[in-house]
Each structure stands twice: as C-alpha cells, then as structure tokens.
C-alpha cells in the first residue's frame, strides 16, 4: 500500500493504492490528517485501491470529520469498484462527497 501526496491547483491530492487494511490504515489516517493541516482542500484518489476494510474506511471517516470540523473540503474521487462495494455495504456512499474523477473534484472546488 502506498499514499502519494501531491499539490494539484488549489488542492492536495492524496492517492492511495493497493490494499488498505489494518496493517496500513494507521499510516493512511496520519497522512490524511497531515494533508489537512495547511487548510487546503483534500481530494482522496481511490482509483488504485484494490481492497479496503473497515479500518481503512474508519481512517477516511476520521479525516472527513476532521475536515468538517476545520471547515475544509474533503472529497473522495475515482472510487474503485472494490472500495465502492465496501462503502455501500457500510452505507457510507452517501455520507462522503464522492466525485467520479480528480478533475471533476477540482472543477467543483473551482466553482
């Protein structure tokens, strides 16, 4: 599993790839909370997530709640079928702000 952090226009894009499980979800949590620290909106690119479990989802929920508390936008983009399946099972697909692509998320921020 890797987390790739990059600046993209006004936002920070955090691209997760591989399997987000109990072993690595603490690192995902830290990386997302870190990325939120400078106040720029965060787009979490989930296109390369081949697997995510409840601990990975919990890291996303925690980042989402931290973002709301500080009034920063946090969007999920390009959610892979594997990740979407788990979000639907957990009924979180309507809680998160989910965009089809990173570009689409950037366009929303530009409005």
């Amino acid at each position: 599993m890797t987390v790739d952090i990059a600046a993209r226009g006004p936002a920070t894009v955090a691209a997760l790839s591989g399997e987000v499980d109990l072993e690595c979800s603490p690192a995902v949590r830290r990386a997302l909370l870190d990325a939120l620290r400078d106040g720029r909106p965060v787009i979490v690119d989930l296109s390369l997530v081949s697997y995510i479990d409840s601990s990975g989802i919990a890291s996303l929920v925690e980042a989402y709640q931290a973002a709301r508390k500080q009034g920063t936008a946090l969007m999920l983009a390009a959610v892979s079928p594997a990740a979407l399946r788990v979000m639907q099972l957990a009924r979180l697909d309507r809680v998160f702000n989910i965009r089809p692509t990173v570009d689409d998320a950037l366009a929303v921020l530009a409005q």
Partner: protein
Amino acid sequence: MSRPADPAAAAPAAPPARARTAATDSALLARLRVPARPPSLRIVRRTVREAALVAGADAAWADDLMLAVDEACQNVVRHAYAAAPETGDMVIVVRTHPPSDDGVTVDILDFAPAVDPTRVRGRDLDDVRPGGLGVHLIHAVCEEAGFQPPPDGAGNLFRLVKHFAKPPVDG
C-alpha cells in the same frame, strides 16, 4: 504431552497418533494457522479467497467472503487478544457447507480468553463514527455469523456461513 506412566492404567487406550492426524475432513477446503497480528491478514485474505474460488464461487462472491473473514480476524487481533496483543495464533477453517455444498462455512478460532458475545455489537450506522463497522460488514455479506461453543483447547469460535444462492426474500 504428559501421559499416564502406565499405559494400561488408561482405558480405553488412546488411538495411535497417526490415525488421528491422517483423518480427512471431506468438506475441508483449507485450514490456516497464523499469528494473530495485522500482517497475517494479507495471508488470510489470499487463502480464503482462493479457497472460495476452488469451492466454485465467482470472484465477487469470493471477495465478499474474504472481507467478512478479514473483519472477523481483525476482531480477534484487536479485541480478543486485547489484554496481551500478538501473543497467540488464530486458525481459519474453510469448508464447503453441508449437506449440498451450496456455500462455504468459515470457522475462526482463537486461543484468547472467552469473549462475552453480548458485547460484540456493531454501532448504529446512522451515527457516523470511525470504527464499529466490522460486525455490520460481516452480517451484510454472510447469511449466518456468530459465536459457537469453541472446541477443546480454543478460546473462541466465530462461525460464518455464506450460501452461493441467496434464499428467496419474502414479501
């Protein structure tokens, strides 16, 4: 293992070790023992997913079963062994589901102190919090899931049953 000093004192005699270990469970697909720690979960996922495929499952079905077993094993790692983390193993047994092999049964055994099953409850899904999702995910993808009386020597036995064809829903 300690044995009575005089074998004749023990009646009936214990069967020879060979007969015991060679006995084959005809429903067995795979039995995996791993240390109860986070990196083992990757091994569990590979094993369970492939065992489901060998049983005849399609990829989406196998992925769902894999998720449920991962969640149950996470609970062993994080909760069952909470008092003494990473001190024990867990055993995952995947079997075709009798009588008609219409699904798979997975037993997850640990050697931790017995858990109080009434304390194992998922949270209300409308209350958006990190955590408390594992139990929901398990029940979302399996027809049956719950603690069973553990066999001799084990601490807890959590059993999942997932059918290939869901029974028709009424109403």
